[in-house]
């Protein structure tokens, strides 16, 4: 980190340049911390930085105020270099109450900036957070961190004392004070937030006025208060030129489906039952009826998947989305789509489990469920996006493969990707590969299970096509004719055929891109939302002069055809996952390589620091 002090023009306080910073806003779940973080993210995007975010909130909608489990936080890292993760250790923590301080202060770097709202540190809140004494009076806190005690509540009320709002309404705007203050500290532009306030509260001018004033008051406080001796600038990052937007994983999945619906010229039906953290996909799709995307809020997870299958049978693109518990319920339905050989896309936004588990926290423990979580031999294609923006391409690709091969495709996203956002280079949709859907209408030589020689796909026939009336179902059938068959040899043949069809999807997978040397000491193999943490750790290790590379799998089944060869080009293989070792088990079984896992299952993304350590340990253990 370069911290060269440069005299700033026009301001009396010194402006230091940083190449990156990690900030976390933390408070009660009703304190508006998610909004504060999102707005700070937008400001940083305006400033041209690369960004990665990590929202973290309790499962309860309004957890009791002041409690430890009611703490909600939003973390982001922004930088003038490529930013791969939301960051491990914090440069700055904003704690709106004692509970937030207690939960998060351990993540703050020694010497880091700690900003607290003093008025929230009253007896009641201290009790709720389990503090016997006020931690702000403990001198060690100020010794370890650059502590700034700010009575944000009082300053907020002062800024809007003449507005006709009640005390509660006034109180609620204090997150904008925090935002204004931190925006000053990191020289973020206020314009996007002012614009947001104008749009959001256009109909309630008094609220708009209050938020605007409080935001500016926080900003002015930083500039004028004696306590802040310096502030920081983070130069724009060198990013590929083009038009950018902030993108979350769930929105990207939804928009990927819209792109697929438009390109394929076929209606898309999305069946879903509300579940965290997947519901936002349903909400987003419901906004875009103009794309002929039809949404069903089904009565349960099973109806969600079967309504999607019904739509596919009718010649639409059937898609369903859920999280792990819901996908468990969909298992039999997915099996039906395997048997009926119909296109179907299933989103699994993984969360902590088993059972209800940690609904709002991230995990990668549904890989085995996706691969094997159904009765009997039930192969499906499994894809996994690497970043929030990648969700767009993966959703599109899932539809393309499902339709081309007449096969279910499971997409494994996770809570981190779903809610996390990144600056996303907007693609030209015309450059996406075509989705070719050729419904069969030719009567001559038609059989329901006649197969395309290249893909083994059976014909997709829309009911309503004269002369092609036929029946399909979940019972085993004779290949080609589709007639019910209990013949032993035929069943064996069909089991192999369904597997081979999925295997042939490998011909769609581009060569694996390797981050680092093509041969070396350690290869780190990752999948899903750990992309950023792994890449950052590997680049750091390589900067230390070590021979380390990484690859990130987006196709989990079938695996890339070149994977076996790549794995053998390194002395050791490390597989970091937020589960107890699922991909590593697949790789060991598939390729007989002595891959080792690095596994933490805390409901949080892996930290690049710990992956870095694991790589070094593996390097050390072989030396």
């Amino acid at each position, binding site marked *: 980190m370069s911290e060269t002090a440069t005299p700033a023009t026009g301001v009396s306080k010194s402006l230091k340049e940083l190449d990156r910073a990690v900030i976390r806003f933390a408070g009660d779940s009703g304190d508006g911390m998610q909004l504060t973080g999102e707005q700070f993210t937008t400001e940083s995007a305006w400033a041209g930085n690369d960004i990665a975010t990590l929202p973290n909130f309790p499962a309860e909608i309004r957890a009791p105020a002041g409690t430890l489990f009611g703490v909600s936080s939003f973390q982001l890292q922004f930088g003038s270099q490529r930013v791969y993760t939301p960051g491990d250790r914090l440069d700055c923590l904003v704690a709106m109450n004692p509970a937030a301080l207690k939960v998060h202060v351990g993540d703050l770097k020694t010497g880091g900036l700690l900003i607290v709202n003093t008025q929230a540190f009253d007896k009641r809140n201290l009790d709720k957070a389990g503090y016997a004494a006020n931690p702000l009076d403990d001198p060690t806190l100020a010794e370890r961190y650059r502590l700034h005690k700010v009575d944000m509540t009082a300053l907020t009320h002062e800024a809007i004392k003449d507005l006709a709002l009640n005390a509660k309404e006034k109180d609620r705007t204090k997150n904008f004070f925090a935002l204004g203050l931190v925006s000053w500290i990191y020289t973020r532009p206020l314009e996007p937030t002012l614009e947001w306030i104008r749009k959001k509260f256009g109909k309630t001018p008094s609220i708009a006025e209050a938020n605007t004033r409080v935001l500016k008051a926080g900003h002015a406080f930083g500039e004028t208060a004696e306590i802040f001796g310096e502030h920081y600038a983070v130069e724009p990052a060198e990013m590929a*030129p083009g*038009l*950018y937007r902030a993108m979350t994983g769930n929105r990207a999945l939804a928009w990927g489906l819209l792109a697929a619906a438009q390109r394929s010229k076929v209606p898309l039906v999305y069946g879903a039952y509300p579940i965290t953290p997947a519901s936002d996909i349903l909400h987003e799709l419901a906004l875009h*009826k103009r794309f002929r995307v039809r949404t069903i809020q089904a009565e349960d997870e099973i109806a969600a998947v079967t309504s999607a299958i019904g739509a596919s049978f009718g010649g639409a693109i059937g898609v369903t989305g859920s999280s792990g518990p819901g996908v468990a319920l969909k298992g039999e339905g997915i099996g039906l789509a395997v048997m009926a050989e119909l296109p179907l896309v299933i989103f699994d936004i993984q969360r902590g489990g088993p059972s209800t588990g940690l609904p709002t926290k991230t995990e990668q423990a549904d890989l085995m469920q996706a691969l094997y979580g159904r009765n009997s031999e039930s192969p499906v294609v499994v894809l996994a996006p690497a970043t929030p923006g990648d969700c767009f391409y993966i959703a599109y690709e899932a539809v393309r493969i499902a339709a081309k091969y007449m096969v279910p495709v499971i997409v494994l996203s996770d809570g981190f990707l779903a809610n996390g956002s990144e600056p996303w280079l907007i693609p030209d949709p015309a450059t996406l590969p075509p989705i070719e859907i050729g419904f069969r209408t030719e009567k001559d030589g038609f059989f329901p299970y006649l197969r395309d020689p290249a893909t083994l796909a059976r014909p997709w026939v829309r009911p309503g096509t004269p002369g092609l*009336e036929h029946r399909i*179902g979940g019972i085993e059938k004779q290949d080609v004719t589709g007639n019910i068959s209990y013949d032993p040899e035929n069943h064996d043949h069909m089991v192999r055929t369904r597997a081979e069809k999925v295997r042939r999807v490998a011909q769609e997978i581009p060569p694996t891109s390797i981050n680092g040397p093509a041969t070396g000491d350690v290869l780190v193999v990752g999948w899903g939302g750990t992309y950023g943490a792994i890449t950052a750790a590997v680049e750091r290790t390589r900067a230390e002069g070590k021979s380390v590379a990484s690859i990130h799998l987006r196709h989990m089944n079938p695996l890339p055809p070149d994977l076996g060869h790549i794995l053998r080009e390194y002395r050791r293989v490390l597989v970091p996952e937020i589960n107890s070792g699922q991909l590593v088990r697949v790789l060991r079984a598939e390729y007989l390589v002595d891959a080792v896992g690095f596994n933490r299952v805390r409901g949080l993304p892996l930290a690049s620091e710990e992956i870095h350590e694991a790589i070094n340990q593996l390097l050390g253990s072989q030396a």
Partner: protein
Amino acid sequence: MSPSGADAKEAPKYTKKDFESDQDVRWCPGCGDYAILSAVQKAMPDLGIPKEDIVFISGIGCSSRFPYYMNTYGFHTIHGRAPALATGLRLARPDLKVFVVTGDGDGLSIGGNHMLHVLRRNVNVTILLFNNRIYGLTKGQYSPTSELGKVTKSTPMGSADRPVNPLAFALGCGATFVARAVDRNIQHMEETLKRAARHHGAAFLEILQNCNVYNDLAWNVMYDKEQKVQYELRLQHGKPLLFGPADDRSAVIMDGVVPKVVKAKDVPESALWTHDERNVNAAKLLADLFAPDFPVPIGVLEDIEAPIYENVLLDQEQRALSERGPGDIAKLLTSGDTWRISEGA
């Protein structure tokens, strides 16, 4: 694509044979399903719908083999889920005529939830529920419509669950068309089938069906000549609720809010209960009538109109399209907050 159903296209002149598939029918000899299949195939030509526009969706169970024997489009799906699958199909393809074939186990036990929702949403599907009060395909366990105390393989000392009444269930779900037919009353079944098929919205038709292997003569009250004469109450819109032998007619009348059976000759005509298919509350009372204390109503209990689920959604789509034109992903991607990073920035 017209959301109003499949009646826009002109259908060729069909005969029953056109609806027979090439598959061997595999129900037990003597099964009531044969009569139902024959009645459905016979009713089809009268509906005037091109057969390529007809889809039969089923779940699991003896009844659910039905689609294989119809020379239309068909999908034999998984246990209990046919109504949900049909909902997705209708939303994707409002131009198709969709039938759901189910049984008392498939439709009211494992699929009870989906049955509830397809009915309350009023999805435009025709639901045929074959009720034989037994699990046949799994070889003879009691079903959700079996009588309390039913002795079966799984209940050697008698079942402990009280049965569900399919008609009362359907009405409770807000169904817009509810009717009952009997597998051995072919002509009446055909007529009632056609009424159900022509209904706009979810039509629920319970067919009392005989499982001669595991629950023979469960509906003997409707089969035995003497009993049938005594108990069959044919519902006819606008006609009084009269039943029993021609020379000794009985009537169902309302005694306060309680139905009561009286001799027809003992009450003035003005006291008779006139059947009104649009009266939902009356239908709910009718649904609960059964022998031996009451007659067994057959025919259409209720036929009303209500918004159709997929039509409402497709109207919204049309509105969105006409107000703002078709969606354009390129425009959407660049909408809202964006920023440009230029070369060498």
